[in-house]
């Protein structure tokens, strides 16, 4: 896998668009999910994911081939998401409907007229509530939670992505975990 990625990157550096397309297809869902859990909104997340790949393409020369490509790519995605939150805060998502109140329209992925079995419906609500609670965390805790528990990355990888010492990452994981425990304990 790694050597395949390396080959593709080499081709992209030479201007090969097909190689770039392959890279996009390989990483698009991961990148999208990082952005989605970071900013909370599907459309914004998709724009940010697109921006991530655009940056990766135009700055591909800055990527050193001895590094891990996914780390570099996820760093772009998290940085763009954090920048977005810094600019957008607090209007968009804090005004959103809060679970327990009426509609979750904001996080609704399933068209409302579609009938769902009850347990599927419950699962759906559950997913929305967890998503919502992640989004209530300050961005610096949100990023470690997303990378560690949603992307299943190691502390070392996360510390490379966020450009932070591993000890800092670990402390943040502990604090974020504790904050979520308080919010999700009545589940």
């Amino acid at each position, binding site marked *: 896998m790694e050597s395949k990625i390396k080959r593709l990157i080499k081709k992209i550096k030479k201007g090969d668009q097909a190689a770039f397309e392959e890279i996009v297809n390989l990483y*698009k869902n991961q990148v999208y999910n990082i952005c989605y859990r970071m900013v909370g909104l599907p459309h914004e997340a998709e724009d940010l994911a697109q921006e991530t790949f*655009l940056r990766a*393409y135009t700055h591909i020369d800055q990527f050193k081939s001895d590094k891990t490509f996914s780390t570099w790519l996820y760093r772009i995605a998290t940085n763009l998401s954090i920048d977005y939150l810094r600019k957008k805060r607090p209007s968009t998502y804090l005004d959103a409907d809060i679970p327990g109140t009426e509609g979750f329209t904001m996080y609704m992925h399933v068209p409302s007229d579609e009938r769902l079995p009850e347990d599927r419906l419950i699962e759906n609500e559950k997913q929305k509530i967890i*998503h919502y609670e992640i989004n209530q965390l300050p961005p610096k805790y949100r990023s470690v939670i997303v990378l560690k*528990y949603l992307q299943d990355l190691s502390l070392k990888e996360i510390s490379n992505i966020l450009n932070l010492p591993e000890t800092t990452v670990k402390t943040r994981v502990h604090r974020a975990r504790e904050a979520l425990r308080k919010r999700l304990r009545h589940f």
Partner: protein
Amino acid sequence: MACSLEMKRLIDAVLDEEATAEEQQKLKTHMHDCRHCRQHYNQLVQSINLLKGLEQPNVSEHFTASVLSVVPIREKGQTLKRWFKPHPVLTAAAVFIILMISSFFSLWQFTPFQAVVKGKGRLAYQGNTVIVPKDEVIDGDLIVKNGNAKIEGKVKGDVVLIQSHSLLASAGHVNGKIEKINKFMEWLWYDMKGFFTRVFLIKRLPG
């Protein structure tokens, strides 16, 4: 909450999968008796499981196409630029060599007829033919390009014919060797040897 800082640390170590067997046992024993720590630990495990159980939605179908529609198409030139940027010394050398070769090449291609004496001696001309007159002795080498050499006198050194022919008259005499160069690369090599230094270049006389 965990009942002590020590237990909190143990819980974190276990959840980070960094606790030793001994530490794990210690926490287990403690949780058996301490409801607070047991609850705290279970809630943390539950939160982690909820996070790990989150669905990973796929990005929309048209995503790749829309990314590709916004990326700029790289020009070929950028590939060179990309190579040159981190290699400034090699770049300077490459540019120098390219300039040198192209200047040689244009010299090779576009200087029509030329005759050069490296040393002493007098030449006569007849159209594209350079003549070493009868009784004349060239004390050195004669180099002719894109023309003919008619040697009626004597050349003490070599005669170099670059895309040229010699019309050696019977009376003429060449002490050195007659070297013929008909290819650019041969000429380039010959030139690089420093034999044909441009300092000695004598332009064709008019007429």
